[in-house]
C-alpha cells in the first residue's frame, strides 16, 4: 500500500513514502525494527489470540444453556475456562492496547522517530509469539484444568495436566511485557522532542507511562510465583502445600500481588485511549488535565496495595481484611475522578458521534457500572456472599471487556485512518459499536443477578433455578459475538476500498495527526509543532479551519 498523498501543509522534502512501502516481503516484516510495523505484528497476533479465547467463551456459554452442561464433560469445561482465562488475560488483555496502539503511537505522540530500543521491541514481540504459541499448544494438546489463577495446592500436587508447561509459556511471555514497559519508560523520559514537557504530554502517553511502571514492577512477581509452582511440582519443595510444610495462602498473596496490578495494566491504557477520543469529538480540552494525570499515577501506585481484597474469605485476619478493604475504597476515588472529568469534558463541547466516540461513551458507562460493582466487592461484609460467584465474573467482565475491549476497539477505529491511511464505513462502525454495547449488557448483566442469587463461578453444571438467567446471558453472548465479527468485515473492506484518509481526518490535535497517514518510516518529514495538549480551542497547525 503506497500512499502517495501529499498533504499541503508539509514542506515537500521528498514524496512521503509510508512505512508500509519499505519492503513488502515477509522478511521485511519479521526483521523490522520500526515500531509501527511491530505494532501491526502485535495487532495481528493478539487478534488471533482474541478469536481463540472468544471461541472458548462461546463454547462455555453454549454449555451453560442447560443446567446439566450437556455440551461438554466437566473435564473439558474446566479446561475450556482455563484456556479462556489464560489466553484472554495474558495473550490479549495485557498486551492489547500498550503493545498495539501504544507501540504505534507513543513515539509519534512525543515527536520521536522510534522507541528507545527498537531491537528490544522486536525481541518483545518474538518472546510474545513464542510464549503465546507454546502456551496455546500446551492448552490445546492436553490442556490445563486449574483456572488461570493456578491456586495451590491444587495446581502443584493435585492437577494432572500441563501446569508446568503453561507456566513456562506465561513466564516467557512475561518478559515481553517487562521489556515493552522498560522501552516505554525510557522512551518517554529520553525521546520527547524539544518543547514537549511532561504536562504537555497527551494523557495517552501518561497512561502508557503509568502502565509501564506497573508492568516492570509487578510482572517479575509473577515470574517468581510461577517458578515456585514449578519447584513444588517437580522437586516437591514444600512452599505451598501444607502436607509438605508449605502454606497455600502464600501462593494467593504472591499471585494477587501481581494479578491485581495486572488488572490496572489492562484498564489504565483503556482510560488513556478514551482520554484522547472524548476531547477530539467534543472539540474540548480534556477537563481537569492535571487531575487526570494524578489519577493515573495514583491508580498505578495504590494498585499495588489492594491485592488482599481477593482473599477476604480465604482465611485472612480481620485486621488484614480491614486494611485491604479501606485501600480498595480509596483506589476507587481516582477512577471516580476520571469518570467525572470525562463527563465534564462534554460540557460546552461541540459533540459529534462518530464511531470512536460511541465506543468511548460506551466505555465510560460500562466502566462505571463495573467499577461500582467493585465497590460492593471491596466491602468484606458484601464480599462474603458475593465472592467467587457470577457477580465477580460480571464485575470484571464489565471492567475488562466492557471497559478495556470497548476502549481498544474505540482506539482502533480512531487511529485506523492514521495507521492504514484509509477510512472505514462509518455507518457499519456505528452500528457495531451500538450492537456491542447492547450485546455486552445483555450478556453480563444477568450474571450480576446470578451472582446475587449465589451461583458459583467455574461450575460446569448448575441447579435448574438459574437456567433462565443463563439462557439470557448466552443469548446476549451471541449478539456480542456478531458485534465482534462485524469490524473484521468493514475494517478489512476499508483496507482495499476505503477512501483515503488524509493526515488528519478527525481534525484532531496531538502530534500523530501532523504527519501523513500512514506515517513515513521516520515518522515525521517536518518537525511537528508542539503546543499544549488538547488545543481544541485553537486551529490545527497548518490548517486554516
Amino acid at each position, binding site marked *: 500500500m503506497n500512499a502517495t498523498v501529499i498533504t499541503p501543509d508539509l514542506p515537500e522534502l521528498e514524496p512521503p513514502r509510508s512505512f508500509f512501502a519499505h519492503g513488502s516481503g515477509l522478511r521485511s516484516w519479521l526483521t523490522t525494527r520500526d515500531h509501527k510495523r511491530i505494532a501491526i505484528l502485535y495487532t495481528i497476533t493478539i487478534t488471533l489470540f482474541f478469536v481463540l479465547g472468544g471461541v472458548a467463551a462461546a463454547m462455555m456459554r453454549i454449555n451453560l444453556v442447560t443446567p446439566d452442561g450437556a455440551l461438554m464433560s*466437566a473435564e473439558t469445561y*474446566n479446561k475450556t475456562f482455563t484456556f479462556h482465562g489464560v489466553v484472554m488475560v495474558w495473550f490479549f488483555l495485557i498486551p492489547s492496547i500498550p503493545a498495539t496502539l501504544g507501540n504505534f503511537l507513543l513515539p509519534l505522540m512525543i515527536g520521536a522517530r522510534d522507541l528507545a530500543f527498537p531491537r528490544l521491541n522486536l525481541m518483545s514481540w518474538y518472546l510474545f509469539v513464542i510464549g503465546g504459541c507454546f502456551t496455546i499448544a500446551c492448552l490445546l494438546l492436553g490442556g490445563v484444568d*486449574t483456572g488461570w489463577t493456578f*491456586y495451590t*495446592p*491444587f495446581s502443584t500436587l*493435585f492437577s494432572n495436566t500441563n501446569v508446568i508447561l503453561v507456566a513456562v509459556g506465561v513466564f516467557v511471555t512475561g518478559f515481553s511485557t517487562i521489556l515493552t514497559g522498560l522501552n516505554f519508560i525510557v522512551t518517554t523520559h529520553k525521546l520527547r522532542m524539544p518543547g514537549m514537557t511532561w504536562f504537555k504530554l497527551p494523557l495517552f502517553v501518561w497512561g502508557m507511562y503509568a502502565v509501564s511502571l506497573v508492568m516492570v514492577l509487578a510482572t517479575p512477581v509473577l515470574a517468581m510465583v510461577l517458578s515456585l509452582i514449578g519447584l513444588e511440582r517437580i522437586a516437591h519443595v514444600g512452599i505451598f502445600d*501444607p*502436607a509438605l*510444610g508449605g502454606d*497455600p495462602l502464600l501462593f494467593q498473596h504472591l499471585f494477587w500481588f501481581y494479578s491485581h496490578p495486572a488488572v490496572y495494566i489492562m484498564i489504565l491504557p483503556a482510560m488513556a485511549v478514551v482520554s484522547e477520543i472524548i476531547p477530539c469529538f*467534543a472539540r474540548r480540552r480534556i*477537563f*481537569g488535565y492535571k487531575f487526570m494525570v494524578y489519577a493515573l499515577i495514583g491508580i498505578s501506585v495504590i494498585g499495588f496495595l489492594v491485592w488482599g481484597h481477593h482473599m477476604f*474469605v480465604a*482465611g485472612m485476619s*480481620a485486621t488484614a*481484611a*480491614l486494611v485491604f*478493604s*479501606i485501600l480498595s*475504597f480509596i483506589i*476507587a*476515588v481516582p477512577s*471516580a475522578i476520571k469518570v467525572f*472529568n470525562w*463527563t*465534564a469534558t462534554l*460540557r*460546552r*463541547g*461541540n*459533540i459529534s458521534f462518530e464511531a470512536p466516540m460511541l465506543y468511548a*461513551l460506551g466505555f465510560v*458507562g460500562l466502566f*462505571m*457500572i463495573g467499577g*461500582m*460493582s467493585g*465497590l*460492593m466487592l*471491596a*466491602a*468484606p*461484609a*458484601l464480599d*462474603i*456472599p458475593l*465472592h*467467587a460467584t457470577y457477580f465477580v465474573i460480571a464485575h470484571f467482565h464489565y471492567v475488562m471487556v466492557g471497559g478495556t475491549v470497548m476502549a481498544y476497539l474505540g482506539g482502533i477505529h480512531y487511529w485506523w485512518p492514521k495507521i492504514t491511511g484509509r477510512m472505514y464505513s462509518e455507518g457499519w462502525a456505528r452500528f457495531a459499536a451500538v450492537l456491542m454495547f447492547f450485546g455486552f449488557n445483555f450478556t453480563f448483566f444477568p450474571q450480576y443477578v446470578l451472582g446475587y*442469587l*449465589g451461583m*458459583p*463461578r*467455574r*461450575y*460446569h453444571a448448575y*441447579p435448574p*433455578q438459574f437456567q433462565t438467567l443463563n439462557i439470557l446471558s448466552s443469548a446476549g453472548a451471541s449478539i456480542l459475538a456478531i458485534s465482534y465479527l462485524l469490524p473484521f468485515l468493514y475494517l478489512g473492506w476499508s483496507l482495499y476500498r476505503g477512501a483515503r484518509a488524509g493526515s488528519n481526518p478527525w481534525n484532531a490535535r496531538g502530534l500523530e495527526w501532523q504527519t501523513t497517514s500512514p506515517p513515513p518510516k521516520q515518522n515525521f518529514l517536518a518537525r511537528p509543532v508542539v503546543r499544549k495538549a488538547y488545543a481544541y*480551542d485553537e486551529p490545527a497547525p497548518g490548517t486554516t479551519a
Partner: protein
Amino acid sequence: MNSGGFFHLLPNASTYAGPEDVLWWSMVGLCSAIAIGVFVVMFVFCIRYRKGRPADRTLAKETLPVELTWTFVPLTIFMGIFVWSLFLYAGTRTPPADAETIYVVAKQWMWKIQHPGGQREIDTLHVPVDVPIRLMMTSQDVIHSFSVPAFRVKQDVLPGRYTQLWFKAIEVGNYRLYCTQYCGLDHSKMGGKVIVMSRKDYARWLDRHDSGTSLAAQGAALFRAKGCSGCHGANASVHAPDLDGIYGRIVHLADGRTVAADDRYIHDSIMLPDKQVVAGYAPIMPAFSGELTESQVLALMAYLKSTRPGTQPAHESTRR
C-alpha cells in the same frame, strides 16, 4: 429446596442475612443513583452540545474546588460504606460464646460432617434453628469453600489449617450448600444442603443417628489404636509430653518460642511433629500425616479437649 421460579429472591435464613441484605440493597440503590445521575448528565450534554446546535460554548474556567468536590465527596461516601461494612463484618468473625461446634472436613468432592455426639453425615448438615452454630473446618486435600447463599456465609476451607464460620439459622427449611472455591473435576457437583430443623426435631434426629460413641470417645479409641497412648499415656516409659488438658495451655518450644496449644498447633503436632518441638523433649515422634485422615485428627482433638490435667482420660463419661 428453595426452588422458587425465575426472580425468586434469596431467602434470608440467618441472623446475618437480614442486615447484610440492607447493606446490599442500599449499595444497589446508591450505585444506581450515581450511575443514573452520571448517565443523565452525559445524555443532557450530548443533546445540548451536539454539533450544529446553537449553545453557549465559551470555555468554563476549570476550578480547583470542582475537582476537590468530586474527589472528597466520593471519598466521604466510600468511607461511610466502609465503616458500615466494617461493623457487619466484625460480627461475622467471632462466634458467640454459646455457639455449638460442628466439624467439617472437605475433600474432593464431598463434605464430611462430624457432630460432637459422634453423628456423621455427608453433603448434608443438620442444624437446629435459633442456635448459633460454629463450623470448624479443614480440608483433606485442596482448598474448598463452604458457602450457603441463603445464610450469606462463605468461608474457604484450607488443608493444614482450621477455618471457622458461624451462623444462626432463623427459619426452618432446606438450603443449598455449594463449594465455591474451584477444586478440580467435580467442583460443580460438590454441593449439598443444610437442613434447619426445630430444636425438638433436631434432638430427635441426633438420637436417631446416635452411634453410641461421641466424637471424643472415638478420639480416645484412636488414641490407643494408633499408639499415641504408648508414649503419651500415664504409664509410658518413653519420655513424651503429658497431654491431659493440653488444649489452650501455653507450650514452650525447643527453639525458645512459646505458643498457645490451639487447634492448629495440635493438628500440626500430630501430622508434622518436627515443626514445633516441645522444649525438653527429643524430636522422636513420627509424623502421622500419612497415617491419619483429617476426620481422625478432629476426633483426636475432641478427645484431647475433653481431658483435664491430672485425670485419667475420660471415655464414655465425656458425653454430655
